[in-house]
């Protein structure tokens, strides 16, 4: 009951205290394209990439912060700090990394770092103003990890947009994400090609800034 009251207060505060610069967290499951999106935005507006991307799960194992991004939209300037989080997972098995040619020691070290990354990402939930939940449009959106992330943001009163990423791929079904989470704004994009990113910036300005 106390937490419900705290969240209501948080929502009220947000209405009266519009920030000039928002702290925007990128959350989502592993390999959804969070870092690809962070890189794309950073490259477009700061001229540099920030993180490495890989097909091997848990490539991002530490929180990466990109500060002072100023995006020009049709409705003016959008100022934000991006916090690119490690992917949320409920399991980490070092053997899955060995399948990508890693030695046992390398795989175990990566698994240890990955578990720390998940914990760090969860802790950061208390420090973001708004969130982009980045999901892979080619995968079933109705997983427990996705439900848990979105449920947490709802419970904490943190505004969010769901990004249906990878629409450049032939199997992409962004409409499945809209159907799974009809109560939220869903913006289909391709972080890889940059398709529909202007619509994402407009949505951030309208719903999160």
């Amino acid at each position: 009951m106390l937490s419900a009251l705290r969240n209501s207060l948080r929502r009220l505060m947000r209405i009266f205290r519009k920030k000039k610069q928002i702290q925007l967290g990128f959350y989502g499951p592993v390999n959804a394209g969070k870092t690809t999106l962070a890189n794309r935005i950073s490259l477009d507006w700061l001229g540099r990439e920030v993180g490495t991307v890989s097909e091997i799960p848990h490539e991002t194992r530490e929180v990466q912060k990109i500060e002072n991004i100023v995006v020009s939209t049709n409705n003016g300037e959008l100022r934000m700090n991006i916090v690119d989080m490690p992917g949320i997972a409920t399991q980490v098995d070092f053997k899955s990394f060995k399948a990508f040619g890693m030695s046992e020691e390398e795989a175990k070290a990566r698994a240890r770092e990955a578990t720390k990354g998940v914990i760090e990402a969860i802790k950061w939930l208390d420090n973001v103003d708004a969130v982009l939940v980045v999901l892979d449009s080619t995968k079933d959106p109705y997983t427990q990890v996705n439900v848990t992330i979105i449920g947490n943001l709802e419970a904490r009163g943190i505004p969010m947009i769901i990004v249906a990423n990878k629409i450049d791929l032939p199997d992409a079904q962004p409409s499945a994400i809209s159907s799974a989470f009809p109560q939220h704004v869903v913006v289909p994009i391709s972080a890889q090609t940059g398709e529909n990113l202007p619509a994402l910036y407009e949505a951030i300005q309208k719903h999160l800034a």
Partner: protein
Amino acid sequence: MEIQLDFISSDMLAKKGSAEKISFILSRIKKNVIIVLEEALEPREETELIEASMREIDAEDFHGIEFFRMDHRAKSLREKIAEYISGRRHGMTIVGPTRLIEAIKREPEYISMLARIEIPDKEVEKRHTSAQDAEKSTRKMKKKS
């Protein structure tokens, strides 16, 4: 390999605080038990469960958890008020170690869980031999008839 399922009543869970509940769940799961809770975990409890299981992961024995929650959405105002006052979310949560739960498929109306039963080699051999024996005796019976 046998699979143990423990059904935990909401009355038992109501006596536990969040931290105690998470530690109870994890201790059961680490003993290779799949547990069914007679309540829907709160989203914050779910992240606490993920966080706690990440701390427990070790390379050899424990690789994490699989879980899913089914909510009973309060329909009437009375139900909503009762849930709000009690703080208890009606529904169900199933949690198990990832080595036992192969896959979970969620649909809006139902959830399907596929459990993995790792049968020891000796048991596979025994079953294979008894299947061959059964086949042989069936053939004999057919010949006689």
